[in-house]
């Protein structure tokens, strides 16, 4: 009996996971287009200041394959890759990393993108719509393995850029 119930629970969870993964919010709901909130409850006077320990907003697109892929498209379209090339960094810091100066939670990333940060990160608030910011965040988090693997694209239709695969070449012996 118990195992049966457990089984049903697991099935439901799988089902829910699938629902989130395959969700396609093609028409963003208008509330997300409203005024930018203070996602991380950050001190407005000191951008880049201490981070509130409890971010209050979560990413509505967490784990959604469609939105992660949209985020990846926008990452290129809005030329994020110009400074954070393929997440590896360049003019801007790399985005594949453990330690985030301004916090790596979705809410912190949201604030970083919307309000900008000193030393070059422009404030994108008011320029790109809120739902796209969340999509970009979903993608950035996927680069760090913080999205389900089943919702993340294995590769793009581009020249292989995965650093691990490039390293592989260097490691091997050459004739």
């Amino acid at each position, binding site marked *: 009996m118990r195992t049966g119930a457990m089984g049903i629970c697991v099935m439901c969870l799988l089902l829910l996971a699938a629902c989130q993964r395959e969700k396609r919010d093609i028409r963003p709901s208008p509330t997300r287009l409203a005024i930018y909130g203070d996602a991380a409850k950050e001190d407005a006077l000191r951008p880049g200041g201490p981070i509130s320990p409890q971010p209050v907003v979560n990413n509505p697109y967490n784990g959604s394959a469609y939105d992660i892929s949209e985020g990846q498209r926008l990452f290129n379209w809005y030329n994020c890759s110009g400074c954070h090339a393929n997440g590896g960094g360049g003019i801007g810091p790399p985005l594949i990393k453990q330690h985030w100066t301004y916090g790596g939670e979705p809410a912190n990333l949201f604030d970083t993108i919307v309000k900008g940060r000193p030393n070059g990160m422009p404030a994108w608030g008011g320029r790109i719509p809120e739902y796209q910011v969340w999509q970009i965040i979903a993608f950035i988090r996927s680069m760090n393995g913080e999205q389900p693997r089943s919702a993340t694209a294995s*590769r793009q239709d581009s020249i292989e850029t995965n650093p691990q*695969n490039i390293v*592989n*070449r260097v490691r091997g012996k050459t004739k």
Partner: protein
Amino acid sequence: MSEVRTLDVSGLKQYEISNQAPLWWGQLMIVFIEGTMFAILIAAYFYTRLRMDVWPPPGDQYPHLLLPSVALIPLVLSCLGTYWAGDSAKKNDRAGMLGGLGLNLVLAGIALAMRIVEWHSLNFNWMTDIQGSYVWAFLGLHTFDYIGDLVFTAVLFVLIAIGRYGPKQRQGVYVDSVVWYFLVAIWIPIYVVIYWGPVIVGTQQ
């Protein structure tokens, strides 16, 4: 008019260890299926090569030729074991079957070990570029079948060794050879493609 004629077959054998057995034909179908698959994959390899300006893709090493070429020897010799086992299966010669299967297992095992050693010297994997994808597809598919067949050979070996066998298992020993010969035979063009391919159709020597 309705005269009933009959055809008495009670004198016919109850089993058959030869290419008349349905099971042998079943194995032949597997050979057709996999042969077609590898043929298409080889064609796809050359099609892809024709679309590329540089081959192998920049950064990929030329494969080492020595080890895989040496590995061909135990591989081809393992067919002798298969043949011996199949022949003994027909004659119901237990020692022969054990010897044949054992020889096959040992030689094929050596070839497999050499192949795995060779893998570690490749400086690309399936994600690196398109050549990597193809080479690893060949290696993966063939090795998968190879290991599968080895496992079944080992199971047959155990069955014969513990004496739990009858004509059906002997038939198994016999028809097992069909797939084994095929796996060895198909490896030769695959070997040529993945190891000599970059040399023969590559852009630089």
